[in-house]
């Protein structure tokens, strides 16, 4: 008997995405991320990663192209798309004069979350991220790691289906980075989707289900680490069959630079 496997719904679907500033930052990008996937977007500086993520999050309007989040046209109905998304940047933007608890209450209010549900989630998140002792302190004296954890708690308090992170581990100490990674992994295990840029290739190598490499605003390679190795010309069992993601990434980018 043949089993019918329905296709996994896409959490994110981007088609022909274009954004120009003084030069093309994103140049006809096509990208698809499956639901429940941890997707890492890599690329050299200025490749268009952050611009892409900001367009997905609704912070930038693309010049052309389509963005669908869980089937919702994010350009036609941004409010509906934002309802199921969360955005975290490398510079945690929180309010210095609010406490973490007040910040979470504010975010929950913005997303229209039922107060009892929000409070229960806030309590769990604060405990999960070791923020309970600081829950009633203003954020103004917090370290970068603590601020990033508060921002992360804010992103999770409305239980988003898609989380977009731009370099979330930059500047975090080992302990905070491990906590953030653990929280992200838990989300994926619970069925959430994560799209993340990072310069820490080891993180992408260990955590991502699939990796996309972007250069000059275009997707130049995509797949699991093994698939990327193949695309970089290193077949399994070859001389560089065990090449690290760093080697593979540099080879792919160099290849693209030569082609350009």
């Amino acid at each position, binding site marked *: 008997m043949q089993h019918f496997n329905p296709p996994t719904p896409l959490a994110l679907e981007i088609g022909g995405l274009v954004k120009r500033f003084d030069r093309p930052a994103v140049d006809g990008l096509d990208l698809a991320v499956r639901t429940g996937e941890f997707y890492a977007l890599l690329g050299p500086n200025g490749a268009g990663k952050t611009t892409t993520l900001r367009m997905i999050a*609704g912070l930038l309007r693309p010049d052309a192209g389509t963005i669908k989040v869980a089937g919702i046209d994010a350009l036609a109905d941004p409010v509906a798309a934002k309802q199921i998304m969360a955005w975290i940047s490398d510079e945690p933007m929180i*309010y210095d004069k609010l406490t973490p*608890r007040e910040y979470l209450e504010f975010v929950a209010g913005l997303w229209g979350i039922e107060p009892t549900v929000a409070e229960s989630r806030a309590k769990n998140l604060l405990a999960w991220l070791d923020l309970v002792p600081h829950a009633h302190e203003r954020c103004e004296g917090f370290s970068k790691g603590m601020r990033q954890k508060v921002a992360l708690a804010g992103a999770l308090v409305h239980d988003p289906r898609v989380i977009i992170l731009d370099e979330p581990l930059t500047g975090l100490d080992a302990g905070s980075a491990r906590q953030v990674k653990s929280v992200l992994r838990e989300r994926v295990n619970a069925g959430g989707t994560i799209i993340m840029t990072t310069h820490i290739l080891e993180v992408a190598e260990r955590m991502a289900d699939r990796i996309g490499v972007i250069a000059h605003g275009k997707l130049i390679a995509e797949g699991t680490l093994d698939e990327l190795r193949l695309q970089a010309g290193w077949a399994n069992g070859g001389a560089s069959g065990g090449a690290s993601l760093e080697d593979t990434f540099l080879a792919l980018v160099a290849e693209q630079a030569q082609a350009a």
Partner: protein
Amino acid sequence: MTPGTAVWFARHESRLAWRDWLSMITAGRRERLRRVVIAIFVFAVFMHFVAYWMVGRYADAPVDTSTLVTITASVLLSWLLMVSQAMESMTRAFYSRSDLDLILASPVAAQKLFAVRIATVGVSVAAMAIPLAAPFIDILVVRGGLRWIGAYGLIVAMGAAAAALAVGFTVALFRIIGPKRTRLVAQVVAAVIGAAFVIGLQVAAILSYGTISRATVLQSYAVLAHAPDLASIVWWPARAAMGDWVALVGVLAVSLALLAAAIALVAPRFGEYAVAATGAGTARVSQVVRQNAFKQTSPRRVLRRKEWLLLRRDPWLVSQTFMQMLYLIPPAVLLWRSFDDGDGAYNLLVPVLVMAAGQLAGGLAWLAISGEDAPDLVATAPVPASFILRAKVEAVLGAVAVVFVPLLAVLAILSPWHALVASAGIVIATMAATSIQLWFRSQAKRSQFRRRQISSRVATFTEAFSSIGWAATAAVASVSLVLAIAPALIALLVLAGAWIMSPRTAAA
């Protein structure tokens, strides 16, 4: 030039100050420099005409008690403004980390740089005062002779004395109340002292009510009768301005000695204070633990509440935004003096209320609209952008209402008509100022509040002219509604001009 010497540091500091100033006047666009220079030249010429009209007739004034009282009062008020600026600069010098790590980690004697830095405050305060005073001094020199040139020397002395006082006051605060509170207290005191200049002018004008001169009160019998003898040391600054070289040398010597003493005492420990100040910024502040649960609310309400909470928890911002309220003191004096005069006093009170509301709304609107510390969070919330803006505007209107409703209630008891006109004026001026901030919005940190004026000069000027326009409209309307149409049209034109020049319209 030998590196590490005081002169070498002075060159370094002056280069930074020059570039900072250039960046400030051109708003960071060097290609604007030519236009800015032309604008400054035109403004300087205009100010010379103003100065001619204001002080031309006093160029040949004799050195008598009446003249000395007037000049001394003017010098004192101006010096208050310089003290205010010096305190601002000194607080910034202590609390700005900038190159502190580099300096303290280097093998040079840091106290030389700190000595230069303190002296720079005196120089910059004097350098800022000279262009403002120059048209008046120039006119007095041209019409009254070279003796008035001593006024320039007096400004240098005032700058040095202001810097010395500012250093002494800031360090004293450090020792008494600690680095954590010093910043706020010093900035509030600086702002209050600065406001005292404007308030002093207004009070002098109000006390001279009914005469043409704004300084008649200074020449009244009551003041002159209590003035010290002509030979008193109190008159030295005024005498110095009028060309008494002995007085000028004396004033300069005392001021520079004060500054030198302040530098000698403070420069060796400047680094220590600055490090303590930096540490104070990272101190944790605990809120009273609230046991109540998350509230059922709407995104609009949550945004409004957030704005009010952030404002309430930032005493520095509260002091900066509500400083305009200090300007209500003179009209209160007027009201008190003219209580029996009836309408005359109320007619003067209405425009002051409207003007203050416009200015307050402008500051609050900047904080709510441009000074959003988590713009990405708000922009990624599932709420339409127009909805967010509306909530923020409501937060501004609410804060303005809290301040002005009690005043209007009192006025309504005394004169319902004037209360009605003032209410309408306050609402319109508030909405106009908020609209200008909306049209010119640009992302910034709340901590940049003091620099908001230089981010868009068009916004700053149109906001001020709009408030003045609506204040004038309210003033005229309280006498005649028909006549108020003219100033209202001018205020509308200002708003239209702001809208046309706003970046969003220009980009469309």
